[in-house]
């Protein structure tokens, strides 16, 4: 650089020939070293030793590099990050060469050679650090259509967003400076003196003390909505979607709670802090022990585990079979690492502790499970794999497709991916699912459900059975089922009450005039058929219910309650109740017994209906 400067001083062209050669000379180690110096140098061999400073050059060099003092100038510059560009501050900068030359010339001539001012002022190198936070904007229309809130006026929302912009979303500062004064109504401002003050004070709502969470919740709500307005959720990029999710799911309540806990933690006394520390250590120890225990248990399971083979092992009984078995084993040993299989098996069979009942006919479990898998694949008998059969196949799948891309939540939403425990074979129509719910019910039930749907103005056949709609429909149908059940229960209990009342009346009648028992019986037996039939049906229905309950089946066979909807089952129930009455006559006066019996009889009928259902 020294030579460069000297050339610069002497105004020589940059590519002066003689200088570089000289420079090279200083860099190359001097070839003619003598005596000890040479010996030392030779010690390094190919890598020359970096010692031997040549002191003589220092002095020379220092004088050689002496040059005129650099010119500095107070140069104005602008800063493009400023909102007004008029401010031109000045800082000291070294003069560049041509400027220096121009200066020289000017000094020399001192004539009318007016100094050229640089047209473009240099921009500050720090302007690029001016970054701004992106605060969502909204128009009045957008506010009115999307962002209205009971708690927040538009003015206050505007105020909040202005603060957010001012403080670049530093929430502690926003909260600290948040001081919203609701404006007075314009009508009030031109009020008439003393009179207007009263209504003013009455009308003006006291400015609410907003907590930090309130402010955040409002901001995130608006920001998330505006994001969704500008770009529907499906089209967002990964980052945008994540941001949207975070903002949409902001929960001020849990945040407040968290802060409360934090404040509590801050105000602990020394003892409490110590105790907590001790407890934490304890917990950590317990967890470590637990981990160890689990590990040991898992190992034990692995050791005890052996596959339940449902295969016919006869295949392997012949010598050729044994040969293939051996072959399989060898393959497995070669390809698979034992450990990964162990882990997979251990993870998949946490509950397979029962095999201890069987004598361990295969002491080494894992290879055998492999065999079975292989053999299943080999035999391919088309047998449906049981759950147990599927289990060990997992690692193989993993091995086959090691890097399946894991879809994120957002992508799943976009692509409509859903997970099922088990899929029915072949494609199905969604509305069939709904139909299935309806058709599995009895006719009467079906009828009632459709009636209820009609009441609700919902077509029983869906126009647009999307997944969400079908799910909702299913839910609806289920709740209708529950509703009908409840109604039925209600009727039943009412009927029972009525019956009991009737009986009570009967008994009173019987007690009042002392009559022989036979007559009472006869009276009762006469009474039962004469009660207006609904009773009996109700009774029958009740019995049927009892049966249902014991079977714990869904409301399948309950069509027999209402007389109007009675099909054949209703008739049969009628008949049975008649029978019932006849029996009652024959046996005991106490109704409870009669009930029991009728229940047993009716269970037969419900069985019948159950059979019908199956058909």
């Amino acid at each position, binding site marked *: 650089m020294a030579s460069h400067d000297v050339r610069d001083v002497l105004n020589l062209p940059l590519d002066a020939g003689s200088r570089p050669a000289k420079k090279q000379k200083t860099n190359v180690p001097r070839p003619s070293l003598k005596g000890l110096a040479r010996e030392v140098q030779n010690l390094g061999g190919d890598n020359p030793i970096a010692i031997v400073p040549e002191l003589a050059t220092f002095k020379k*060099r220092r004088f050689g590099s002496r040059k005129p003092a650099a010119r500095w100038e107070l140069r104005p510059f602008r800063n493009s990050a400023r909102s007004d560009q008029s401010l031109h501050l000045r800082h000291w900068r070294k003069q560049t060469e041509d400027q220096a030359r121009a200066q020289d010339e000017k000094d020399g001539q001192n004539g009318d050679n007016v100094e050229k001012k640089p047209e473009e002022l240099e921009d500050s190198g720090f302007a690029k650090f001016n970054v701004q936070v992106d605060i969502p904007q909204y128009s009045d229309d957008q506010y009115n259509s999307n962002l209205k809130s009971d708690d927040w006026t538009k003015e206050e929302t505007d105020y909040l967003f202005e603060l957010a912009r001012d403080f670049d979303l530093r929430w502690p500062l926003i909260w600290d400076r948040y001081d919203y004064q609701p404006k007075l109504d314009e009508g009030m401002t031109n009020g008439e003196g003393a009179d207007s003050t009263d209504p003013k004070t009455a009308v003006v709502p006291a400015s609410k003390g907003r907590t930090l969470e309130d402010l955040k919740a409002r901001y995130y709500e608006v920001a998330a909505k505006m994001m969704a307005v500008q770009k529907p959720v499906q089209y967002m990029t990964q980052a945008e979607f994540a941001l949207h999710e975070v903002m949409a799911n902001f929960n001020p309540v849990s945040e407040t709670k968290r802060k409360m806990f934090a404040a509590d933690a801050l105000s602990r006394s020394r003892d409490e802090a110590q105790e907590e520390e001790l407890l934490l250590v304890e917990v950590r120890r317990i967890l470590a022990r637990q981990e160890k225990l689990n590990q040991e248990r898992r190992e034990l399971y692995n050791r005890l585990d052996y596959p339940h083979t449902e295969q016919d092992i006869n295949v392997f009984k012949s010598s050729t079979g044994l040969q293939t078995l051996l072959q399989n084993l060898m393959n497995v040993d070669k390809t698979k690492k034992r450990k990964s299989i162990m882990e997979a098996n251990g993870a998949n069979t946490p509950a397979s502790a029962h095999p201890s009942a069987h004598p361990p006919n295969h002491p080494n479990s894992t290879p055998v499970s492999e065999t079975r898998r292989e053999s299943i694949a080999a035999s391919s008998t088309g047998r449906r794999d049981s759950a147990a059969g599927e289990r060990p196949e997992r690692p193989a799948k993993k091995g086959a497709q090691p890097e399946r891309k894991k879809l994120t939540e957002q992508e799943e939403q976009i692509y409509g991916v859903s997970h099922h425990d088990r899929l029915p074979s072949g494609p199905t129509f969604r509305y069939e699912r709904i139909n299935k719910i309806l058709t599995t019910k009895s006719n009467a039930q079906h009828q009632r459900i459709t009636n209820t749907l009609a009441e609700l103005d919902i077509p029983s056949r869906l126009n647009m059975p999307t997944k969400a709609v079908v799910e909702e429909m299913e839910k609806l149908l289920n709740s209708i089922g529950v509703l009908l059940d409840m109604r039925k229960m209600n009727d039943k209990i009412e009927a029972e009450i009525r019956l009991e009342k009737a009986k009570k009346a009967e008994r009173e009648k019987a007690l009042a005039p002392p009559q022989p028992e036979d007559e009472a019986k006869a009276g009762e037996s006469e009474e039962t058929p004469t009660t207006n039939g609904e009773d009996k049906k109700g009774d029958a229905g009740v019995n049927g219910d009892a049966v249902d309950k014991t079977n714990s089946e869904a409301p399948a066979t309950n069509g027999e309650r209402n007389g109007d909807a009675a099909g054949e089952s209703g008739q049969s129930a009628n008949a049975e109740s008649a029978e019932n009455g006849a029996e009652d006559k024959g046996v005991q006066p106490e109704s409870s017994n009669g009930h029991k019996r009728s229940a047993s009889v009716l269970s037969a009928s419900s069985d019948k209906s159950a059979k019908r259902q199956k058909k």
Partner: protein
Amino acid sequence: MSSQQPLPNTQQPLDVYGGDEVSALVLDAGYCHTRAGFAGEDVPKSVIPSFYGSIKSGDGEAATYREVFGDECLIPRADLEIKNYMSRSESVVEDWDAATKIWEHTLIKRLQPEKPTPPSKNGLNDPTEDGEGDVAMEDAEEQEKPLAENPLLMTEAPWNSGKAREKAIEIAMENWGCPAFWLSRTPVCAAFAAGKASALVIDVGGANTSVTAIHDGMILKRSIQKSPVGGLWLSQQIRSMWESNDPKIDIVPSFMVENKTPVDAGAPAQAKLRKFPFEIHQSFRAYEEERLLTEYKESVVEVWRGPGRYLNPGNEDLVRSQPGRVFEMPNGSNQMWREQRFRVSEGMWDETAALPTADSIAKGQTIPELIKAAINAVDVDLRPNLLGNIVVTGGTSLLNGFGDRLNNELMAMYPGMKIKLHAPGLTTERRFGAWIGGSILASLGTFHQMWISRKEYEENGAGIVEKRCK
């Protein structure tokens, strides 16, 4: 070989410091001292007392007053009254005329080079020389405003009123013609001086003690806590203690002593006092007494380091058994100070220990309570961070043992929290903390975009300072 050369100036290490100096001035006004200097330096070039002398000439109605500024002017002389342009209770400017004058004195007279007489007035330019004379005139007009080349950064107390801030920018822009101006809060600057953007600043100054939370370079207004427990209050305590001392101590400032002879400890002073042919104003005497008290504070007073309070049983006896410190008054009387030197400062921490003075303090005004109140007024998420970044600044915080006591009090108040005090050991860094922070701020390259420029001021009026300097 090239490594032996110094770094070429064109390769400034921008990434390290980020400085880009535009010859800005920094002015930090306090109740006791006014500090001014160039941005980018580590100590203020000019530190003058905020007390100034007002010399009366003439009598009665026709009396005129002439102000003199600077330590060297505050000498015993006739008709000299000592005044202060700041308000004692608030540490904000009270007398704007005097403020303007004293600031001009420090910024222009002390920091700017002596300007040559403008060519229009020095008589060298012949009016017949047509073209160039005019050019020179224009230059002269441009240069008329004394600070036309220097942006100015001023500090202010965090509780400063909007009106005072507008007044400050008016003076800078109208009177001095600054191209750019900025107003920054004292605690923010002190935090910057400690290299922190978020901190809890404990500023124990001359007239006031304040605790303020700073978040990302801005004060949290709700956290501002202020109390008169500062250097002057401590002086009151010392006066009260001297008053009740046995033997009672008369305060004789140095300027009154002509000569003295050494005496034994506790013995009455033997000194010849000076006689002045004029009356010494009471305010001057008070100012001189304050200097004596300052010396006493610097050399004798100590803060009980804890643990616990000084008044806890046993502590006083322990101190009594320790070696004390001798202080010799200007008039030669001297005494050993043991437990008293702890006692006078204890009122800063424990209001029950404060000696009876004119302005007694309440419980909420002690330093631990100020800190507690400030911490409680900020969001709970910030508290741990603030406690881990406590900046101690202000001259009175240089009391012996102050940092230890503060640390002990904080540990007792917030057990289990990480508490870290940043208290520079260099006395200048503590005394001029706010100025140094302002100096750093004004020399940063990224700060250029913040300045309120002249044009912005002209467009928006003085109200812009409220909008910009939040």
